[in-house]
């Protein structure tokens, strides 16, 4: 196989050289972390590019949510969803958040398949600077997908009569989508490391996905709900992502201290909601740490 190459060249290629990678002890591992995260992210995008069906389905689905739910409530009395809020306007934030949430919830599946096929061993025997790079890569990937989906939803909603938030509003929506995707992606990856197989993971995704949708304010405001559901919806992180976006859709003049969300107990300002989402992310990232560190038997 190597007839064409001189044996001295073979020798130089195959000779051990412990210093080929920068010495891991003295090297600031941030560079390493970025390098491995980018490489893992790139793999996910190559997969997406060569198997684009996930992306296509991911764009068609929220579009159908918008059209179907929009039609379902199209004859609702005007003003039912708040003064000056058409159902299209009401629905768009719910679909944005729910779509990002579903995508993030599924983030663990590719990792689970990597585990089952043994590809993950490749990553685990490598001197990764941190196994959070696996989480980071998935997050970057899901974020990118979610942003594409969000853009499509915002655009489609605008056509369906929801209007278009301003530039600051769009940036705020991006921030909120990022925060919800980060936490849920990390959670899903934690499950992918902890559960025994993809069947179990799919089961968990299945029993979480729709209930969390219905126990949030995505499709109907809190005031429509039974008291017990109001309590659950007020604890549901999805609600904390949906309500500020909805406020942005309804009010051109929103600010960091606008009260964007009412719960049975008290109102939350835009800033507080962001803090809640940050706390949610921090909690999950901490919780999955032992799962990542664990060596796989």
């Amino acid at each position, binding site marked *: *196989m190597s007839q064409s190459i001189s044996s001295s060249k073979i020798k130089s290629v195959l000779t*051990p050289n412990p210093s080929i990678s920068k010495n891991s002890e003295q090297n600031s591992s941030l560079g390493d972390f970025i390098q491995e995260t980018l490489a893992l992210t790139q793999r996910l995008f190559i997969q997406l590019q060569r198997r684009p069906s996930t992306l296509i389905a991911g764009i068609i689905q929220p579009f159908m949510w918008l059209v179907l739910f929009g039609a379902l409530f199209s004859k609702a009395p005007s003003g039912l969803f708040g003064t000056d809020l058409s159902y299209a306007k009401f629905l768009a934030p719910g679909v944005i958040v729910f779509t990002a949430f579903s995508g993030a919830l599924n983030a663990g599946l590719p990792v689970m398949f990597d585990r089952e096929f043994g*590809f993950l*061993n490749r990553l685990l*025997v490598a*001197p990764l*600077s941190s196994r959070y790079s696996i989480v980071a890569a998935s997050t970057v990937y899901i974020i990118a997908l979610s942003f594409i989906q969000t853009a499509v939803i915002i655009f489609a909603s605008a056509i369906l009569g929801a209007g278009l938030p301003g530039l600051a509003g769009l940036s705020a929506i991006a921030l909120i989508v990022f925060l919800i995707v980060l936490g849920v992606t990390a959670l899903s990856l934690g499950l992918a490391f902890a559960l*025994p197989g993809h069947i179990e993971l799919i089961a968990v995704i299945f029993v979480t996905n729709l209930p969390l949708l219905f126990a949030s304010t995505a499709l109907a405001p809190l005031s429509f709900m039974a008291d017990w559901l109001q309590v659950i919806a007020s604890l549901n992180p999805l609600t904390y992502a949906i309500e500020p976006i909805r406020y942005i859709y309804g009010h051109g003049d929103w600010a960091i201290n606008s009260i964007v969300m009412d719960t049975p107990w008290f109102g939350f300002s835009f800033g507080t909601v962001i803090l809640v989402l940050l706390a949610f992310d921090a909690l999950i990232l901490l919780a999955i740490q032992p799962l990542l560190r664990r060596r796989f038997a």
Partner: protein
Amino acid sequence: MSAAVLIENLQKSYGDVQAVKNISFTVQPGEIFGLLGPNGAGKTTTIRCLCTLSKPDAGKIEVGGVSAIALPKAVRQRLGYVAQEVAPDKVLTGRELLKLQAALYHLPQKIIGDRIQQLIEVLGLEEYANKKIGTYSGGILKRLDLAAGLLHQPEVLVLDEPTVGLDIESRMVVWEFLQELRAAGTTVLITSHYLEEIDALADRLAIIDRGVVIAEGKPSELKDKLGGDRVTLRIREFTSDEEADKAKHILESLPFVEEVIINAVQGNSLNLIVKSGQSSLSKIEQSLAEVELPTFSLAQSRPSLDDVYLAATGQTIMDAQIAASSTRDLKKEKKQQMK
């Protein structure tokens, strides 16, 4: 100089299965070390502990003097690992996989392209590098895995049964390559259940059986330690039981014959252990002729590694292999592994 790999009193159980009961061996820098054992002996379990994929229940593991348990990251940097089961990402091309691998080992960006190209050339992958891995044959996949394992120029390359399921030609390619690798100064640890493979490649080996080491040393040493020569005798192509018994009886009375075993599976051929010496064959033929038994074939050889295994366990590796593969529940193991 510290050993390239040191494993001492390693133990690892899965549930109530003791996969590794007590394994110790030392690999010296620059040698090819073979870990020989039948199916289920504990080879993969040992290798997984060495490569920091599973945590041993007890024991010491060091690579170049560094503990795999205390400093797993440093050990990962020093090892290249070629797993028993190749796990390709079918969607990527070979080159893309190598690029990923290079980043995981933090190769400096500016040398990655060259380094990948060098390995592609050395492993003869030019024709395949830009094709999707899903289209590769088993032999090409193994070569890609070798390239991936060597990208970061590790001190030790660990290969778990690298030639299982490969055709003879691909197997020869791997053998030759490992010899080149040793010539270049890389230490190689290879597991196998093929005697010929370990015999042909290994400078030293350990034979393991049911989670313990039953012999360690140079192939020639282990064989010499057994002493005597092996003689295989066929009276006829297929010998009747009576004739085989009769021959056994006569041969056992010869002074230089130590043991006679009738191998029913091989058409009642006779396996003899004799004292080393030149004239055994003619004396055997002569004493058979005296009782009017013919000789269909007769051959004398030095003991093989299989004889070493046979002497320690009472069965050949092939028999152990067949017995073990019929009792293992691979699905259950896979499940256990995921826990």
